[in-house]
């Protein structure tokens, strides 16, 4: 039996004008907007119903670690440009350069998680678990889901840097499209953080 091939993974689909993989990832991102949208909506609803935010008094920026979160914002922004450079390297036919930038993207994702680990462990040390109050429930739910997305990105990007690279020898254009799709997801994860950071830490 011949190998089953998903059609239009390289050439644009005649109806949409884009390859199926790219269309698929955009539909997935649309569903992700709704997932995070539901959490943002709940956050606003919970917050407007509280007399004080955080409930124990003070400001979000005093309770949460703004310098660490600012560092993490810079880390994610940097990982977004390294991801673009990884894709651009594929477009220019330079696989070693792709490996370099993709490796940097994954390393930065780990840096983000390590910083988050320090933030979380400090909160737990103080007894500020999600069960503590609405403020920490919202904080841990939203940053936790975002953190899971970072882990997902590491897995996909790790595959593309490792075993997935084999496709380059067979069909470089198909491989480049995969890198582009992984990039779209990764920029979306950055984009979510761009809204999470001010709404949780600064306001």
């Amino acid at each position: 039996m011949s190998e089953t091939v998903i059609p239009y993974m390289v050439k644009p689909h005649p109806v949409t004008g884009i390859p199926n993989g790219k269309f698929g990832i955009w539909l997935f991102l649309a569903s992700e907007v709704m997932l995070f949208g539901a959490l943002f909506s709940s956050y606003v609803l919970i917050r407007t119903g509280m007399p004080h935010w955080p409930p124990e008094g003070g400001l979000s920026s005093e309770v949460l670690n703004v310098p660490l979160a600012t560092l993490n914002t810079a880390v994610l922004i940097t990982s977004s440009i390294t991801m673009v450079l990884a894709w651009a390297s594929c477009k220019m036919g330079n696989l070693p350069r792709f490996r370099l930038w993709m490796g940097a993207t994954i390393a930065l994702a780990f840096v983000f998680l390590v910083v988050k680990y320090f933030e979380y462990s400090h909160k737990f040390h103080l007894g500020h678990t999600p069960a503590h109050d609405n403020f920490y429930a919202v904080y841990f739910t939203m940053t936790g889901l975002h953190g899971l997305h970072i882990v997902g990105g590491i897995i996909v990007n790790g595959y593309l840097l490792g075993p997935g690279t084999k496709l380059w020898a067979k069909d470089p254009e198909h491989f480049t499209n995969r890198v582009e799709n992984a990039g779209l997801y990764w920029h979306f994860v950055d984009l979510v953080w761009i809204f999470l950071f001010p709404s949780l830490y600064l306001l």
Partner: protein
Amino acid sequence: MDAAQHEDVSKHMGQYYVVFVALLCLTAVTVGVSYLHLARPAAIAVALVIATVKAGLVAAVFMHLISERKVIYAVLIITAVFFAVLLLLPNLTTFEHHSGLPGT
């Protein structure tokens, strides 16, 4: 990869670096403004405007939305409408009870 594509990508490299620097600067601005302790409505407005500009830059340049196919715009417009409903509908129910803004 053909030469034309090669040239096309290298032409955009400068743009990527400009957006990268702009994103870092806007992050510094949003953190800086938070230390001014503006009145809450102004603080929310400034933070959301800066975040929207940053998100717009990422989407337009890094995600290539500036030169994308119509079908993706169509998907995103529908998403934006439903996102707005998702955000506004539950919260509209509380606005009549709370005349103040979040956290006041």
